[in-house]
């Protein structure tokens, strides 16, 4: 593959290709669940894939509610599940 990009998701190392979104890179690595919902703690993954549903939100470098289906991975990015 071309130059791979490294990032962490919940402190675990992942890699992906340039131009891939966080959600895409995680799915490519078989990691589907992005977060658990805030009331019922139910697992959620990508749903609409185009930034409409906000189900795929993650915390990126400390900033909450970022849509992982839209944001492209970059080296050293720290991604965490929302509370």
């Amino acid at each position, binding site marked *: 593959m071309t130059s791979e990009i490294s990032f962490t998701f919940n402190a675990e190392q992942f890699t992906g290709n340039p*131009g891939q979104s966080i959600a895409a890179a995680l799915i490519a690595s078989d990691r589907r669940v992005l977060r658990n919902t805030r009331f019922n703690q139910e697992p959620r993954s990508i*749903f609409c*894939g*185009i930034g*409409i549903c906000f189900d795929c939100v993650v915390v990126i470098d400390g900033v909450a509610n970022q849509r992982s289906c839209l944001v492209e991975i970059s080296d050293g990015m720290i991604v965490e599940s929302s509370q």
Partner: protein
Amino acid sequence: MIIVIGAGPAGLAAAEAAARCGEEVTILDSSQRMGGQYWRHRLKVSGYKSERGEELFAKVSSHQNISHLSSATVWSAEAKNDEYQINFLQAGIEKSLVAEKIILATGAFDRSLPFPGWDTPGAMTPGAAQSLLKGHGVIAGKRIIVCGTGPFLLPVATALAEAGAEIVGLFDANSPMRWLLSPTAIFGNFAKIPELIFYARLLRKYGIKPEFGRAVVEFSNGSASVAQLNSDFETSDKELRRIPCDVVAVGWGFQPDVSLGGILGCAQKVDGDGTVIFSIDKNQLSSKRNIWIAGEATGIGGADLALIEGEIAGLSAAGHAVSRKLLRKRSAKRRFAKALQRSYPIAHGWTTWLKPTTTICRCEEVSASEILGSVSELGAEDARGAKLFTRAGMGLCQGRICARNVSEIVSSQTGCSVSDQERIASSNRPIAAPISLGLLADGKSRN
């Protein structure tokens, strides 16, 4: 200067046409790359007649009159004196652009219907599966069911199959016999036949057998339940086939996001398929001075129609005459779009698929029983009431996914049909995208 919002087929066609007439154009689009959803790509556009996309990208990129601001998310717009100010976020900074003329081409998103398990990992829209594949080079799963209704299921299923996924089911809730309701549309759009053949060949190549009058009505524990539907979309309990799969890509047509046009005050109406769209004249001009609207937001009609509407909007914004030929092409495509509506309707029986625990508002985790309870116990009579009592529609997506469904569930309980006013109210929001309080505060001194 003309600002075009949206770089999908309609927006690109509008920008190209306006620039061709000598206008300065700035395109604002929230994606990193041009193409919108229809021409999603990472490196190159693929799919049926994909060269159209590549050609248009080339024209737009090379034109000296056109600037393209990518990754620019518009959150609001204001009329200021005789101009319009568009406020957007780009790279974590708030900016704004002012222009006399605006062309809105913000496209559409998949319509979703709730069913038990639609909120669990692995269930997604066909748009998500398509975006993952075309935009990010990732296949959504290994064993995929593509279902719902509409012509979009075909390109999604075939693209996934070409990329190596196993399509274990392709179900359309409607029957292709419905096309017989629209004979003139078919005759006026023979160009569609090669497209049909293109997909039919691919279906055969990958051994995908489409089935009709069927839908996935439940998804859990790695398998989907497929039911036979009657024309009201109700299930007859007898046949509930279970198919092991890790992804269910389910979509029920499209609906446009009307937030920006609504913020600017453009008049809206309800289309035959129940979607809220804008009223426009024959030149794609909205009810507001110097605001044109093209593409899905004037009525869901697909890329061919969007390209034509975009061109007409661009020419009109540039003060240029629009040829009869172009107008006739638009009429033909509009007839085809109407045929699509007749061929792929969504019947009310989907509400019978719901269990009390089925999530209706995904963002705020509101269940069907809570929505129904707000009607029977608390006196909610419409989506607004249900929203105030249950929080359905108050979450991050601001009702884009659930509001229409909430209206229809409430309606199935009260027996009163959903009014146009309710549909329009649910589709409008003064904040089109989230923006941090810090950026808002800082923007005050800038203004």
